[in-house]
């Protein structure tokens, strides 16, 4: 854990994720949130993107006879998996290793990085192609591979775009959501060496295809994530649209699937429910174009396929959540992104501001458990509106978990001293109606005086945090109880 250093205003598009040593996460967050929430161009881009998602998503839901029944079924599948995680993970491992695959249990990011980097060195890997995996972002894998001399190519188009810009992904499903075609065209003209590339999305995609195709065919190692680990058949299930996940797991000699331990599901048939629900929540599609199942390296008699298959199971704090009966369901997350899409906070500050691998509501709930108290502020940077909870396809009670995070932080004594004192005083007043009424009367008198002098929003204003951003809070002359006493109680 790095020592907190002086604050660094982030470069355009960058955040603490890019500069982990540069600032205390909360300070960086506040800075970035202030900048982004005032950025109306950004707000409009996000709004348009999310509107498009909303339309597709609602259309997708209408394909279900009973969407709520599907959510409940997904919740039940993940609950069974997580409540018996050890059993299903072991079953998965058994099935994979029985067919010659390798399963590595990584306690933390470092162990995972080392295993994969060592593998790359052992096999003289020079080129690595990666399909989308948030866990590989979490463990900061690319840098570790580059250190041992590999060129790492992100092949998911959105990930490739942000890689070229040296940025973290903006969103867990649509990494380049914050960019428009003009920006992407400029980027490609510069980085792909195609100066005449038009702004047409189709041509831009074709350009990326041309460039990345060379990498696919040259790579010695392909790294994928996993959407699900199917225990009964010992297979990694990967849901994609672009075909990059397919090429990544077909062409290179070595396939490494990197995954959190919580991705396990009991049975292959569970995918009949999870595949459509994931696609509906993620993009509004009935299913993603490719639902890939990989159970091992190429077998004797098969035409092609990798010679080696490795699954890296990453813990990195997840098992501590397992031990928490109230919070355990947070591990049900299937990383669909629906909570990000509906979250009004996300829509106003964007994905980079969070400074975490996982942004949005799930990120706010999860990150303090994975990365510690430095990220507690995320549980407070929310109005607890509950929209996330209504859309989560596995019915995680997200906004109540945020509330519980707050409770747990205060119980652990992490509240700021000044605030704790304020609430002690508040409590004393609320337990004593006379004190409450007197305090209320005095406060109103004081505020009216301060505002009468035109000092609203100034350092003399106890409510300046409110009044800085809004018109001055109206302060009533008479409280309700005073009016009640003065005759309202008698029906006047």
């Amino acid at each position, binding site marked *: 854990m790095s020592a907190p250093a002086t604050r660094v205003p982030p470069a355009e598009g960058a955040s603490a994720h890019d500069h982990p040593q540069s600032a205390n996460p909360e300070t960086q967050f506040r800075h970035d949130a202030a900048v982004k929430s005032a950025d109306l161009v950004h707000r409009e881009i996000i709004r348009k993107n999310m509107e498009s998602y909303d339309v597709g998503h609602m259309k997708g839901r209408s394909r279900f006879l009973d969407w709520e029944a599907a959510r409940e079924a997904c919740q039940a599948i993940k609950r069974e998996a997580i409540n018996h995680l050890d059993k299903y993970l072991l079953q998965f491992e058994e099935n994979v290793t029985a067919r010659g695959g390798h399963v590595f249990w990584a306690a933390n990011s470092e162990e995972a990085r080392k295993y994969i980097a060592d593998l790359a060195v052992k096999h003289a890997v020079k080129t690595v192609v990666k399909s989308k995996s948030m866990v590989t972002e979490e463990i900061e894998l690319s840098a570790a591979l580059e250190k041992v001399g590999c060129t790492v190519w992100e092949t998911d188009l959105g990930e490739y775009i942000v890689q070229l810009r040296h940025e973290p992904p903006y969103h867990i499903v649509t990494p380049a959501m914050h960019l428009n075609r003009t920006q992407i065209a400029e980027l490609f003209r510069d980085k792909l060496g195609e100066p005449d590339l038009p702004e047409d999305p189709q041509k831009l995609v074709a350009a990326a295809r041309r460039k990345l195709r060379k990498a696919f065919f040259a790579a010695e190692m392909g790294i994928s994530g996993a959407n699900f680990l199917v225990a009964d058949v010992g297979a990694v299930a990967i849901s994609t649209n672009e075909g990059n996940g397919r090429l990544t797991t077909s062409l290179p000699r070595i396939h490494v699937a990197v995954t959190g331990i919580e991705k396990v599901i009991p049975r292959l048939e569970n995918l009949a429910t999870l595949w459509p629900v994931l696609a509906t929540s993620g993009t509004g599609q009935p299913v993603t174009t490719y639902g890939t199942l990989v159970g091992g390296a190429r077998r004797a008699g098969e035409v092609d396929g990798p010679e080696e298959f490795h699954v890296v199971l990453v813990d990195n704090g997840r098992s501590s959540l397992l031990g928490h009966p109230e919070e355990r369901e947070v591990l049900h997350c299937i990383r669909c992104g629906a909570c990000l899409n509906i979250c009004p906070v996300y829509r106003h500050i964007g994905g980079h501001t969070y400074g975490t691998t996982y942004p949005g509501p799930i990120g706010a709930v999860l990150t303090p458990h994975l990365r510690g108290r430095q990220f507690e502020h995320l549980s407070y940077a929310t109005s607890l509106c509950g929209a996330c909870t209504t859309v989560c396809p596995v019915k995680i009670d997200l906004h109540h978990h945020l509330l519980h995070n707050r409770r747990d932080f205060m119980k652990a004594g992490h509240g700021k001293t000044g605030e704790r004192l304020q609430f002690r005083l*508040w409590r004393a007043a609320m337990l004593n109606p006379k004190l409450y009424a007197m305090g209320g009367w005095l406060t109103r008198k004081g505020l009216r005086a301060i505002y009468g002098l035109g000092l609203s929003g100034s350092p003399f204003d106890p409510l300046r*945090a409110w009044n800085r951003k809004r018109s001055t809070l109206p302060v009533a002359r008479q409280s309700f109880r005073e009016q009640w006493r003065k005759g309202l109680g008698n029906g006047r």
Partner: protein
Amino acid sequence: MPRKVSLFVPCFVDQLLPEVAVDTVTVLRRIGWEVEFREAQTCCGQPAFNTGYWDDARPCAERFVRVFEGAEVIVCPSGSCTTMLRNFYPELLKESPMRSEALAMGQRTYELSEFLVKVAGVIDVGAVFPHTVTYHAACHGLRELHLQQEPLALLRAVQGLKLVEMARHEECCGFGGTFATKFADISSAMGQSKAENVVASGAEYVTAIDPSCLMHVQGMLEKNKFAAKAIHLASILASQGAGA
């Protein structure tokens, strides 16, 4: 059985927005219900609870339950405060000797529109409000109490009132309790979007069942110098003529 309700006036309504409670009393009396106000009440504990200080919220909650002992029907003109009593007291007071009383109290506590439609059985409360109004579906009322049809039904029955829908009317306005001051930038950005949606709807007024949201939205409307105003549902229902 006498038709009587015990009024639960949220602390900030009492001190900052008393007209919401005054108008609530007006409406209840107009439809023939007697109103009592137990002056011993202060705060239900929500601010401390929401901020994570459950040990400070708990004694306030316990006291609150005691204050309303014996009240048959409790009415509150706030979705968030009603939510506190009905949805969160059971959790907050899980280990408390007052738990079962708190549970019972929650069952007898109603947000105003909920009370009018489901308990009093009235939709037309004799209100007159000849203005264009848009409805903001405040979060607690919507997602914790599952209320939306009730306030809308009451609004549709108001004489002269024209109801228009605004974009993203179910999106949070950004108040969020202490969030409004702890993360004022984000809160006001969300409020800004809400205010802009109000104006785009063409409405003269935005209404909701949560006075805290309205306080925040009003602050944003005024800061932008928009003409539209925020008004609590109770004030519309209490109105018997033009303007409020």
